[in-house]
């Protein structure tokens, strides 16, 4: 008996070196790795290569040159461009961070009334696409037609213009407001993971509420704040909608809008755009690099210890009405006013400011118009296809990547992690540019089709998918897989029947997130679309360029409503899933 078992094992051992069969495991892993490497590396290499070339025309072939960098770095404009970009990004990041930190502290650590409602409300701005937010704020605070300005003018009788979005401070205001929910979420997580007894012990030591907030809470949240600041800085410096819509009309240029200008002039200066893009890449890479270093070093501040007791909230006394009022004002600025002004304008024949007279002329015409456009159906179909397709492919591919990174001992797997995360440093516009350049030069027939946008979206959102999958993968115990293997399941069967179902909540959350950001995507699409492959966000962009404000508003209202219901549905489904899985 023992002999027979021994023979069985030795046979198995013998088989390995001789009969190497191509295991489906390796095919799947191989395909995923190659896909990721292709997506992450190709655009980067091409971008750098392109930045050393002169423009190619019908008669003259491209030549190697340093001219682009000379123009990009040595012209007098350069210093100003860098200065403006950094000032803009710094301002936006600081403003968003200050706002987000205060709101998060208020929500997590104080007895401000109606907090749970606030938390739900504070997430709503995340579904408003950037371009709509900017357009709404133009309607609210442009010097000529801005509602807020008109109120000051007509009702209060002042004859100066208090608000002007077409300025650097206006840009910082709009973008900072737009990114503040993100800061709020990042800081909320930081405050939640803090041991409440750290504050309670300060309280018992006799410290006042403000002493605790300043000397304990804020200091403990400091690493999270610096990390969030870097993320926000990178986001701000790569943001496109605000600089394009608010900066360009008054000649305030930052890197993203300069790249756009360089391409959208005739003949387009792809080389110059590329060298700007490389500079921008260096800045974002530095930001992301420092941020990852900081997260790696944050162990010192890991503060979750001891037993979980219901955290006692700081009693703000009568100040709590002030904090509640602050939130209401914030919510109005970020959600209510922008949405209402869009709604108002979507019910007008021609855009006009709200008056009693205009109230007589409410109409649904813009909705009728927009739906009768042939491009409407195409772009809705394209957007849906792209968002669902991107979300599905990204989540599946990154689940395999996450498995390799977390569960295997394959040497160099950290490289796979970095490779998949590499697109994080690509601003959307830069990614669009490099993909455009590559598929212009490598004609495999996807340039000008929807597939080139698909590639851009998958590349751009791959890092987010990986984060979602890594987090849930780490929670799956190795033994669950091993017991499936012991039961006789093959690797692909184990992956399909054990790993994927266990990942389900994370997969679903990531899928929904990627779907939403895909629908909102503008800055990569803007360089890649062509007639027939428009998406909804591009359609909004074009309506803006054509001055069709009421139709734009109608489309915007429908889009925001749709995204809002997707999120509601997601939360509902998530809750049901959560219960079923627990």
């Amino acid at each position: 008996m023992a002999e027979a078992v021994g023979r069985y094992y030795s046979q198995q051992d013998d088989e390995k070196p001789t009969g190497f069969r191509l295991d489906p495991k390796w095919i799947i892993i191989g395909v995923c790795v190659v896909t990721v490497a292709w997506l992450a590396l190709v655009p980067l290499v091409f971008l750098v290569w392109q930045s050393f070339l002169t423009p190619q025309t019908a008669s003259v072939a491209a030549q190697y040159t340093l001219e682009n960098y000379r123009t990009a770095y040595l012209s007098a404009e350069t210093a100003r461009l860098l200065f403006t970009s950094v000032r803009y990004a710094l301002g936006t990041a600081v403003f968003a961070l200050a706002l987000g930190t205060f709101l998060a502290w208020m929500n997590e650590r104080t007895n401000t009334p109606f907090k749970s409602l606030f938390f739900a409300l504070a997430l709503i701005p995340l579904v408003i696409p950037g371009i709509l937010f900017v357009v709404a704020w133009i309607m609210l605070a442009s010097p000529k037609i801005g509602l807020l300005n008109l109120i000051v003018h007509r009702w209060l009788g002042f004859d100066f213009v208090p608000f002007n979005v077409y300025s650097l401070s206006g840009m910082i205001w709009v973008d900072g407001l737009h990114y503040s929910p993100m800061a709020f979420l990042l800081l909320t997580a930081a405050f939640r993971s803090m041991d409440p007894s750290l504050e309670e012990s300060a309280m018992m030591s006799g410290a006042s509420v403000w002493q605790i907030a300043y000397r304990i809470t804020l200091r403990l949240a400091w690493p999270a704040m610096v990390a969030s600041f870097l993320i926000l800085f990178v986001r701000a410096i790569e943001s496109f909608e605000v600089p394009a819509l608010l900066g360009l009309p008054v000649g305030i240029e930052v890197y993203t809008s300069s790249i756009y200008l360089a391409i959208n002039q005739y003949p387009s200066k792809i080389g110059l755009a590329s060298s700007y893009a490389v500079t921008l890449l260096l800045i974002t890479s530095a930001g992301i690099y420092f941020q990852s270093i900081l997260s790696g070093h944050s162990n010192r501040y890991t503060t979750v210890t001891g037993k979980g007791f219901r955290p006692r909230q700081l009693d703000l006394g009568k100040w709590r009405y002030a904090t509640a009022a602050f939130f209401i004002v914030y919510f109005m600025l970020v959600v209510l006013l922008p949405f209402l002004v869009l709604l108002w304008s979507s019910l007008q024949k021609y855009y006009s400011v709200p008056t009693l007279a205009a109230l007589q002329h409410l109409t649904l015409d813009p909705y009728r118009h927009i739906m009768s456009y042939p491009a409407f159906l195409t772009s809705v179909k394209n957007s849906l296809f792209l968002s669902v397709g991107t979300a599905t492919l990204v989540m599946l591919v990154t689940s395999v990547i996450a498995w390799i990174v977390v569960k295997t001992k394959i040497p160099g797997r950290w490289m796979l992690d970095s490779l998949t995360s590499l697109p994080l440093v690509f601003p959307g516009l830069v990614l669009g540019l490099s993909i455009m350049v590559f598929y212009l030069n490598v004609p495999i027939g996807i340039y000008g089709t929807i597939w080139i946008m698909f590639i851009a979206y998958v590349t751009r959102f791959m890092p987010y998918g990986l984060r979602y999958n890594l987090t849930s993968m780490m929670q799956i115990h190795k033994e669950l897989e091993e017991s499936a293997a012991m039961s006789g399941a093959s690797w692909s069967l184990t992956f399909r029947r054990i790993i994927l179902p266990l990942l389900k909540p994370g997969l679903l959350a990531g899928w929904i997130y990627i779907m939403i950001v895909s629908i909102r995507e503008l800055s990569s699409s803007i360089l890649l679309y062509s007639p027939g492959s428009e998406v909804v966000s591009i359609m909004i962009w074009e309506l803006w360029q054509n001055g069709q404000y009421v139709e734009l508003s109608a489309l915007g209202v429908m889009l925001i409503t749709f995204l809002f219901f997707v999120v509601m549905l997601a939360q509902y489904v998530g809750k049901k899933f959560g219960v079923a899985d627990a």
Partner: protein
Amino acid sequence: MLRVQSLNTEYPNDKGGVVKAAQDVSFEVPEGKLFTLLGPSGCGKTTTLRSIAGLEKPTSGEIDLDGQVIYSSSKGVFVAPNKRNFGMVFQSYAIWPHMNVYQNTVFPLEVGKKKISKTDMRDRVMRVLNAVALDHLADREATKLSGGQQQRLALARALVMEPRLLLLDEPLSNLDAKLRERMRFELKRLQRELKLTTIYVTHDQSEALALSHEIAVMNEGRVVQIGAPRDIYERPKNKFVADFVGTTNFIDAKVLDVDAGGGQCKVSTRIGDMTVACESGTSRNDMILVSVRPEDVELSDAPLSPDTEYNVCSGMVDAKVFLGEYLDFQVKVGDTMVLAKGHPSLRTPVGDPIHMRMKTDKCIAIPADGRA
């Protein structure tokens, strides 16, 4: 003297209901004494402590210290926790990771109402760090301390403000067994030296017995017995206390006769008739429980003759476990199992008959279930 009167604290739970964490809790702690709240997790001991600290707002009751009311529902008084000047050590120690040892300790002095000069601060901090043997580590990062050092730092921080009351929330539960025992003595010495009125929360009965002047045993939000450690151990008032504090045998019994003078009664049990210590108010035919600690059951190979001071019975060794210092015996009397501790020299094999005697005043009558 701290006085807690009919304290009730409740809070909403996740499902929107109300958890009655402390119900009608009353006790008094004389000046300079160490008072322990003992009970299983979820019994309301931590809530009671946090209510005294002011971190939890009670729903009703009154708390006063040396005559000053710090909380009273009827008078509408609630002194904010940062105005109470109570030192507190948290279970997690709550050492601020962004400060070093000195900065952690000096914090209460810096934020306090009283203005203290820098040199005075330094003196006071170094004195208290000296008392907990951390003075040589004053400049060390707080996160670089070992568990025991963090615990002492938390204590130093609570002591530096010269608190009117010291609150300790399971301060030893995060330490390993050896260290816990050492810190237990350390803590006791410090408390006795400083004569600081102290409230100590723990679920560890041996810790409570070792440290306290007085113990309140809590269960399901209520205080079930208050007494000196010896009283609690030797004279448990009900089944919960007898069971929670130490190990014991419970034997169902029926009262046959009550002795008028000596607080004794005769009962009939399944291991024979016994004389037991009982409370006044016990009457004939009451159904009770008799509690006997295993160490109060004396074992012998030879038959024992009945005695007025002892209850005697015989059984058979069902199982035994050698534990070095003593042997754990399970003795079967009829179909009742009795636990006993035997001297290691006792070598009666399993299955052999064995004889037991229990001092009558170590056999305690407690109310049967439902009369707690």
